[in-house]
């Protein structure tokens, strides 16, 4: 396998960052994941995952403008790097190849 494997949460975080575009930061990423998947992820898990993906070179971050409602603290905004997009594509390919031919069993109700 050419690209590093992504964990479940890493995939979700990368996809959320991709969807959010310029407005991707920890709170919006967490809300996006919860809103789309119904999965409640802890704050700590989101921060750790964002940091890890940045260390891996899949995300890059920068500071936004400080606002009064944030107590004068700036948002740390994340955006996708080419390595992140490549890792997502690789993950998607793996899922497609593993699920090929199983559509009828996966779409049905559990036995």
């Amino acid at each position: 396998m050419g690209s590093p494997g992504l964990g479940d949460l890493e995939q979700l975080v990368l996809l959320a960052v991709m969807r959010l575009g310029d407005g991707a930061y920890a709170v919006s990423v967490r809300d996006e994941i919860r809103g789309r998947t119904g999965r409640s992820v802890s704050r700590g898990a989101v921060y750790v995952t964002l940091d890890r993906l940045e260390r891996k070179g899949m995300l890059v971050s920068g500071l936004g403008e400080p606002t009064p409602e944030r107590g004068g603290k700036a948002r740390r905004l994340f955006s996708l790097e080419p390595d992140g997009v490549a890792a997502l594509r690789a993950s998607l390919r793996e899922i497609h190849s593993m699920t090929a031919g199983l559509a009828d069993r996966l779409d049905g109700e559990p036995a």
Partner: protein
Amino acid sequence: MIHRLLLALVPAHDRDAVLGDLNEELPPGGARMAARRLLALSGIGLRYEIEPYVGGDGARDVPGLLATGLGLMWGAGVAGGAWAGAGIPAGYDPVSNALLELWASPHALGMLSALMAGLLAGRAGSGTARRHVVIALSALALLSAPGFVAGAAAAGLCLAGACLGEAARREPEPDRVGATGF
């Protein structure tokens, strides 16, 4: 709330951004109250990590250090006096010796020093450290002043001074954690 705050803060390297996120998500005052409670419960390492974000009244500021230093010097003088009274020769420490002389002079000076020590300790220092210093100073005053009445009076003055100091330092606080200018 506290566990969520702890989990959010501990693994994150950009704590300013994390605290901003908490401020944004939680109701005004919520994050700040949780952080203060967390400070009260946490170990000293975490306390020093988080305290700057909760408020600028930490024990590391100059008035806090000054108050603690003066309080300790005063305590050393009182302890020196007690030891000298018990037959242990004083003079091993010029600071204690000087303060011993002050304490041995008219009681008013001792009472005044108790009041001042309480006032300074109440005026500065972080919440927990302030309480500890005030309690220690009051106990020292009670135990080491010559006679129970004088000790009780000195301890009372120390506590009164701490209350005055606390009232003097109270100021409007922003309802956000680590807000700029806090």
